């Protein structure tokens, strides 16, 4: 099962996921091609976060299949490390390592997991910190940084592993409106460089601007999807219209 760039880089097929008796995902399917930016929107509790957590195996699935570059995520003999080298993830609460400085946070995974040369990793880490516009904050501890700055360090930390796909789980939900912008600009830069991104977000304006495709989930299923232009203008599903009506 070798993967070629003409096939979807992430392929989600009829995925079912339950927590005990509560079924959170009830047959979700979608494909993401390399370089695409996909936004998943929907009301709270509709399974958006669960869905992207399933993609890098933080949550297991009970039915269907998820493949990332041909790696079957639901397989019992899944090589989790191989999968996670390909898939980077950024969390709502940043989850930086509080006992390490910003640059150490970025350098940790490449030096420890990939066992790469320290000097080279450090040079790359400095470049990544500059890329997320945090020059001068290399030696600050997470506790000394603002939420938006921490989130940008978290993005740099994921990028340091050189992933092929980035997952963003409501990365701006914990930020105040002013700092949301600096994080979104960073993600927009990434998208412009051709990084494959899957975002769970409530930022409709942002979704409209950068997404190639938007999926609307409700109660564990995708009820509406399409490119932003058609999605926002001509959503046909009544639930979607109601949701958009409240937000826009």
């Amino acid at each position: 099962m070798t993967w070629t760039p003409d096939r979807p880089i992430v392929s989600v097929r009829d995925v079912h996921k339950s927590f005990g008796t509560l079924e959170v995902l009830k047959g979700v399917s979608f494909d993401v091609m390399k370089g695409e930016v996909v936004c998943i929107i929907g009301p709270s509790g509709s399974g958006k976060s669960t869905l992207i957590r399933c993609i890098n195996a933080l949550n297991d699935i009970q039915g269907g299949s998820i493949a990332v570059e041909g790696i079957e995520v639901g397989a019992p003999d899944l090589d989790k490390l191989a999968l996670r080298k390909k898939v980077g993830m950024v969390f709502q609460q940043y989850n930086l390592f509080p006992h390490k400085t910003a640059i150490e946070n970025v350098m940790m995974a490449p030096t420890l997991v990939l066992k790469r040369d320290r000097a080279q990793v450090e040079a790359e880490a400095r470049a990544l910190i500059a890329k997320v516009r945090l020059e001068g904050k290399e030696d600050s501890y997470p506790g000394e940084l603002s939420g938006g700055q921490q989130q940008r360090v978290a993005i740099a930390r994921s990028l340091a592993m050189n992933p092929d796909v980035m997952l963003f789980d409501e990365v701006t939900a914990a930020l105040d409106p002013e700092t949301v912008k600096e994080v979104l600009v960073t993600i927009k830069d990434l998208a412009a460089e051709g990084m494959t991104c899957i975002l769970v977000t409530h930022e409709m304006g942002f979704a409209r601007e950068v997404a190639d495709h938007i999926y609307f989930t409700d109660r564990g299923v995708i009820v509406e999807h399409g490119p932003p232009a058609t999605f926002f203008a001509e959503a046909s599903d009544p639930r979607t219209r109601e949701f958009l009506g409240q937000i826009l």
Partner: protein
Amino acid sequence: MTRKSIPGVTVRARTDLPVLKPFDVAAHSPDPMMTVRWLAGMPWWTPLAMMGAFLLWPAVAHSQGTYGMADAFEALVRWMPFLVQSGFLFNVLISVFAMLVGTVMGAFLGLGQISLSRPVRAISWFVTQLFRNSPWLVILFIVLLALPFEVEVFGVLFFFPDWWKAVIGLSLPVMANISEIVRGAVASVPTAQWEAAESLAFSRTQTLWRIILPQCFKRMIPPWMNWYAILTMATPLCSLLGVEEIVTLSRQAMESENNHPELLVPFYGFALVLFFAYCYPIARITIALERRYSVKL
């Protein structure tokens, strides 16, 4: 953040009926640092005041014999170097070695309690609970009576002095409590830290040693010192089993001074002062460290 208005708690109750206030869980749960907090809360002159109070005790103050308090203190001064060198020194040695052995074993046991393997977890839990909830004296008795006093290894005879056995006996309950400290400290790190490390392709071992343990190491120091203070104060338990330490020797010294009742206060008071002088600074430092390392995430 706006303060919530809760009638009867943050604002005046608008009723004269009895109001059930919220239960303060933290205030009613047992304090793991109780011992050092109690010790550190005393003023430094506490043992002196206690000895003074005993000297005013009617039976002591009005003793009619020819042997007076002055003679008792004179006897104590004669015995002091011996009591410290052959007695208290061993209390310190026993406590240091028991702590060392207990910490190493307890660290492994604590990591065993968070192992992914179910049997390892179950056994570690069982051993921890067994030694944590057994009376120290019972453990000491079993170890002292069960271990041989000499072991022959490859034809060489090794003597097992009593105080070594005391070290092993005391290290077992320490081990169990350190195990709980390690387990609790690891559990206190938010699971999001595990997930973040997982998503960066860290293995479980790497996550534990590079991400989780460094974050909770500082948090483990105050409860660890708390157990050292408890252990040190528990070393006189060995005297019941004839191990030579300060209380055993004090009793023997008093016997050789003809068991005058006047000897009790100076001799046991001296042991009390020694223990206080040793443990009190530990307790004060522990409380200071606890304040400094209190959770900041």
